[in-house]
């Protein structure tokens, strides 16, 4: 029967694609890993619980091995007829996602075990979301990008509502879910229009068609489609005015999940923007430059101004993250004149941002083990009983504020260089607005530092609390990375040397 069916198929129409298994090895490791996690949970139930975090870390670190071998190999691999590309930049980003997720797992270990949570599913969902992120790094096709986006979003919706009995967490989950689904609906509508005018779902083909259309017939639909697509991802990176979900979700979600959303999920949004804008929409800089300039200016200004008034440190970090996203959106606005530098400055910013923000959340998790509150005033007097933690947190805050010699300054410097190097009026304007915002930002970061160092402990409770070693590990990795990237930025520029990418872009 099957044989007859096969005979019916015309031979020329079915080509089995040759798959470069090495190129997709990281994704395969994660896929198998997440399946193993789910299966183990359903078969062994409670017995497997204590091993879940270890297993999840092993899966994530295991996926690093093929990433490293691919990086050593160094060649650019193109799969599935150009819809999936593994190049040096995508490897840097994959490594970033894997390490970030590993740190999140470290942060979660005791948090999840101590609280009233479903432990096993938690880790399989995180690993599944990482799969989506890895695919995003290499996707060069609208469909692939969409699938990757949903693969990383749907687990995140569930994770945000993970504290089942807590109304705040429920609220956080529903807000994130509804806004997220709405945003992806808008994104999809944009993608469907883009498919209509671009004649394909492949980014390179769409780019050719965009050039062909120019501002001729069908141009308004191009504009509409582009804006809808960009906005879909602007939601993901919490750019103003699509940021409204972020503070509420961050506050309500379990803190390690917040860290995951603030860093990994946001980075994934930026990766998608990089793929779409640099490989496709760059054909129409007259549209995307002003769009991104508007988003960047609104994000950094509004984010910073609202952050000034926050009393909860997690909400403060949410708004600061919005402002930081504004800084990262800015280089998109000089894409026409300074393409290569814009790209590398965004990627470098993403790496440094991941280190310092994850670190800040790790410290907050450690502190809330004692204070049970994320109010800024509850941090008072921290220096007197946990000086080490205070110093580490101060380093992260200083880095976020952009004070040398911590990583943050170099990230900002890179964006600056890209903006000014673009040599356009828009670039200069953005650079100036960014400079002003940097100063405003210093105020609320230092305010937290001041509370920790100078203020009295509320209700005089100064008994130090024990910090689990996994959390110390998370803080150690991030603090070393933050300081190292600041003192030796050369490390970053070497790993993110995009000359092959630049050559590809120059086509």
């Amino acid at each position, binding site marked *: 029967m099957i044989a007859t069916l096969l005979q019916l198929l015309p031979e020329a129409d079915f080509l089995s694609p040759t798959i470069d298994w090495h190129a997709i090895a990281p994704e395969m490791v994660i896929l198998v890993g997440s399946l193993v996690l789910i299966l183990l949970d359903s078969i062994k139930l409670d017995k497997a619980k204590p091993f879940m975090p270890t297993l999840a870390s092993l899966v994530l670190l295991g996926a690093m091995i093929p990433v490293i071998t691919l990086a050593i190999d160094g060649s650019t691999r193109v799969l599935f007829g150009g819809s999936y590309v593994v190049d040096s930049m995508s490897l840097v980003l994959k490594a970033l996602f894997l390490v970030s997720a590993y740190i999140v797992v470290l942060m979660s270990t005791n948090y999840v075990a101590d609280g009233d949570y479903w432990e096993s599913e938690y880790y399989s969902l995180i690993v599944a979301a990482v799969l989506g992120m890895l695919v995003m790094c290499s996707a060069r096709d609208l469909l692939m990008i969409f699938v990757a986006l949903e693969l990383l979003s749907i687990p995140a919706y569930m994770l945000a509502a993970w504290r089942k009995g807590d109304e705040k967490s429920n609220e956080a989950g*529903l*807000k994130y879910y*509804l*806004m997220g689904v*709405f*945003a992806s609906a*808008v994104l999809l509508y944009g993608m469907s229009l883009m498919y209509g005018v671009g004649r394909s779902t492949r980014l390179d083909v769409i780019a050719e068609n965009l050039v062909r259309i120019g*501002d001729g017939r069908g*141009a*308004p639909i191009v*504009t*509409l489609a582009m*804006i*809808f697509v960009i*906005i879909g991802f602007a*939601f993901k990176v919490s750019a103003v*005015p*699509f940021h*409204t*979900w972020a503070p*509420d979700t961050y506050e309500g979600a379990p803190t390690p999940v917040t860290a995951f959303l603030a860093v990994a999920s946001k980075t994934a949004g930026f990766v998608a923007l990089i793929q779409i804008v640099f490989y496709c929409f760059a054909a129409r800089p*007259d*549209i995307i430059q*002003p*769009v991104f300039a508007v988003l960047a200016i609104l994000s950094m200004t*509004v984010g*910073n*101004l*609202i952050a*000034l*008034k926050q009393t909860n440190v997690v909400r403060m970090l949410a708004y600061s993250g919005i402002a930081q996203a504004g800084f990262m959106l800015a280089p998109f606005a000089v894409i026409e004149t300074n393409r*290569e530098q814009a790209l*590398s400055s965004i990627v470098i910013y993403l790496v440094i941002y991941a280190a310092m923000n994850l670190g800040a959340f790790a410290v907050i998790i450690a502190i809330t083990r004692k204070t049970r509150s994320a109010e800024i005033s509850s941090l008072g007097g921290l220096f007197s009983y946990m000086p080490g933690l205070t110093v580490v947190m101060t380093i992260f805050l*200083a880095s976020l504020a952009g*004070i*040398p*010699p911590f990583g943050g*300054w170099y990230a900002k410097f*890179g964006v*600056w*260089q890209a903006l*000014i*190097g673009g040599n356009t009026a828009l670039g200069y304007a953005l*650079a*100036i607005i960014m*400079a002003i915002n*940097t*100063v*405003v930002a*210093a105020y609320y970061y*230092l305010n937290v530092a*001041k509370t920790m*160092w*100078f203020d009295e402990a509320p209700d005089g409770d100064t008994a130090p609390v024990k910090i689990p070693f996994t959390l110390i590990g998370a803080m150690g990795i991030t603090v070393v990375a933050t300081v190292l990237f600041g003192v*030796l*930025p*050369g*490390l*970053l*520029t070497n790993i993110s040397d995009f000359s092959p990418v630049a050559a590809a872009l120059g086509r």
Partner: protein
Amino acid sequence: MWFFTHVWIIPALMALSFLLILFFGKKMPKKGAEIGIVFVGAAFVLALLTGGNWIAWSNDNPEGHGPAAEGAALANVDPSCSSVAAEAAAVGEGVEQVEGKTAASEPAGAEKGGHEEVATRPVVSCVNWFENGDQTISIGTLVDGQSVLLLIVVTLISLLVHVFSTDYVHGDRRYTHYFAFLSLFTASMLFFVLSENTLQMIVGWELVGVCSFALIGHWWEEKPNSDAALKAFLTNRVGDIGLLVGVIVLYFAAGKSFSILDLNILANEGGISHNLLLIGSLCLITAVMSKSGQFILHTWLPDAMAGPTPVSALIHAATMVVAGVYMVARLYPVFFEGLSISGSSVNALSMIGAITALFGAMLAFVQKDIKKVLAYSTVSQLGFMVTALGVGAWTAALFHLFTHAFFKACLFLGAGSLSHACHHSFNMVDDMGGLRKIMPKTFWTYLVATAALAGVFPLSGFWSKDEILAGTGSFPGTQGANGEYHVMLVMLLLAAFCTAAYMTRTIWYAFYGEYRGHGTPHESGPRITTPLIILASLGAIAGIVNLPAAFDFLPEGAQTRFEHYVEPVGLYFPAITHAGFNPALAVVSVLVGLAGIGLAYLYFFKDAFAGLHGLAERNKVAAFFKNILVNKYYFDWLYTTVIVGFVKGPLARAANWFSANVIDGLVNLVGKTAVGSGNWVYKNVDQKVVDGAVNGAGSSASGVGAMLRLTQTGRIQQYAALFFAAVAILAGVFVVVIG
């Protein structure tokens, strides 16, 4: 050469000292202070050796004139850190790249001031720091007279402050932490001073700021201290924007190079357009305004006196605040060309400096806190330096920086010694007085430093201030050195007058009259007085290093040594002209200083005799009784005027009349005006307008933040509506506008 290429050891020593104190300090018998002193001492010795080597290096400079020699002077610059030097090395003799500058570009007929035209040979060495795309960013050291000068000053003051502190902060709860940060601060400042490129300068600049944050807030348990630290830091952040923008503009202006040497040479040769230089220099001036406490960003400096006094001496007198001045001096061609300093009569730099000099001096009048007087005095003196740079008197500015470091550090440490004796109060009006006899060492050193600051001949302050005044090129006889800055001369003379007067006032309050505090004050120990004596002696004699060239009766090589060794000559420095020494101007400046001292002396010392200071001006009855008291119930009058008066009555009466009407009137008028205007400016401009503007900007930002917060209602559907409204507006606008 070894010293020049390995000069990085000096900041590295201090950084090592920081780490050692941090990790092992608590376990050491002296709690880490000895580590700091040994290391800073070693750094000072190395700095001195470097200085000696620099003098020898400059002395055996091969003779040679003209462009070829100037090009060859760059032979000691590592080609990897300066593209111009690399070019010069490639060409061989480096003649090719100097065509922009010929002998004709130097103003003809200008007074050379005994300046031998031999090109300075800076030594630059660097290593790759990181690579950014095709751009290599290096980190290294630039050694020339200017950086060597600062090396010596910073390490010396730091050493003395370390010694002073062992006694002053003895028993402090964070003694070890304090010394660790002193070391780190010194290391950062040295790192900044030796910067080879502008990016490195930014890093050093920020590090200095962070350390000062930690040191000002040393006693953070008291809220004003932590507030002051935060204010200092935030005000400096404002300037940092200027620095960042300026450096980036200049980076692109210099053809994507951060190298100070490249930038200076290009700016000097006219390789960068005037407008770019103007924008760059204006941006950098913002940075100078914040770091060097120039009007209107000076408000943090007096507040920052909340830190421990030795820190004030180190940070707010001798090192950190001169960073701005140093930066201008380092990038001088940028300012020289950008602001067209040569041949004009006003520019942004000189204007800001002159306003600051006068303004700061007036404010110093009405302070009760002795440290605040000194703080405003520092503001004012920094104004002198900035003005000097603004009018083209580069050497005078650096010379003043040099002498000021000594006497101002001495004054600050003296104030520390006073408060050490008076139960840690700095209120000279209410808690001091009459300490002259009790604390003779402090008194005499303070007096010498005051005289130096007031510009009394022949102390060091006289020489440096006189050079600045001459540098304005306005006084008859010194005209047109680098343009004629008449306004600046007048403002600086007024400022000098005020300086002399307010310093006399502090002496009166602190050392004369009755002791007004409580307890029994006592002279401080040797670890406090020895640094004072050293600083006062240096403050007295430091002037001899730059005696005017006009003193040709001195042996050859005794004049203008400072200018000879410190001021660069060659491609990377503009051809500035030095104003000659003018005896008339010197007399005027000394007279102005003496007039200030004299009037203040009469105002305070004379009236105070009656113990009714100030009352007599307000109340006629009081004046009547005071007159009786002054005249000792007229018994004296009876004896002298009635009896002896028969002999010399008319003379005595005339003298009396003169004293009562002319001198008293003058004293009262000047005193009242000065105090009144100082008070008015302090109350209305400094505290209301300037502080108000700073606070207003802050509160309006947070007000807007509070309003924007209201958009975050917590309702999902309002979020969705906002989301879609934004989509619709963006899409609508773009579809309509772009199509």
